[in-house]
């Protein structure tokens, strides 16, 4: 996604630079022409006489750069607490990366993680059973 937005922005930037250069050449040409014909007439302004294709190219290149920049913004985060917490539960930290794949620096994580791993809430019988199963499995492996 970052590559796509950068490509689009760069392409629009090229078009805009081309339009800028064309407009500059056009006004230079007009002023040169006016300077050589200065004895005949005096043309004060050369404003609003850009050719149509330069105008169209400027507007379209601006639009392309705009699309590229909007695509390059980071994804927004939900502000309702329940939606945000649900997103953390489902996607973990992958839902909060910026465009290059690194996790955002101000990502808080599960706000209740400290509560969920308290020692008072450890299920000791389940852990004993698991340990016993593991020992049995180890004995059967050794006996083979």
């Amino acid at each position, binding site marked *: 996604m970052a590559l796509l937005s950068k490509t689009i922005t760069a392409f629009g930037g090229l078009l805009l630079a081309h339009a800028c250069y064309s*407009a500059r050449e056009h006004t230079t040409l007009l002023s040169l022409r006016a300077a050589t014909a200065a004895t005949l007439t005096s043309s004060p302004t050369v404003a609003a006489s850009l050719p149509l294709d330069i105008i169209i190219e400027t507007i379209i290149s601006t639009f392309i750069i705009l699309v590229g920049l909007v695509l390059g913004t980071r994804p927004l*985060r939900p*502000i309702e607490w329940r939606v945000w917490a649900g997103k953390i539960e489902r996607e973990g930290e992958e839902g909060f990366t910026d465009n290059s794949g690194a996790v955002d620096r101000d990502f808080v994580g599960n706000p209740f993680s400290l509560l969920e791993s308290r020692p008072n809430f450890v299920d000791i019988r389940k852990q004993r059973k698991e340990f016993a199963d593991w020992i049995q499995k180890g004995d059967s492996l050794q006996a083979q």
Partner: protein
Amino acid sequence: MSTERELQISPIVQESVMHNSRTLSNLQSLTASLFGVSAGILGLESYSGFLLYLVFSLLTAVLVYLLRVAPTSLSSGKPPLDTSRYFRSPFDFWTGGLMNGLAGYILTWTLFYGMVRA
């Protein structure tokens, strides 16, 4: 329902609010400078220049809505043109960046007007 009661029923995540508003204002400052380049190249004068700024800023907001807000917001059942999933006030979303980017716009506008028009 008063706001405090609403906030107790469905609280707001402050970190997300800050992240979203920071993203939006960065984008709007950046694109305001870009629009100034375009206005300078086109050689626009007073009223038409500011009109271009307004039109393009609204276009930016529409694009941000279409590309960043709408896919997840519509699929979670919100009505169209509703930004309440990501932003607290729709007025701030649609028109908040205007004052923010105006200075950058005028800066690049006068710069490129001078450069292109000699």
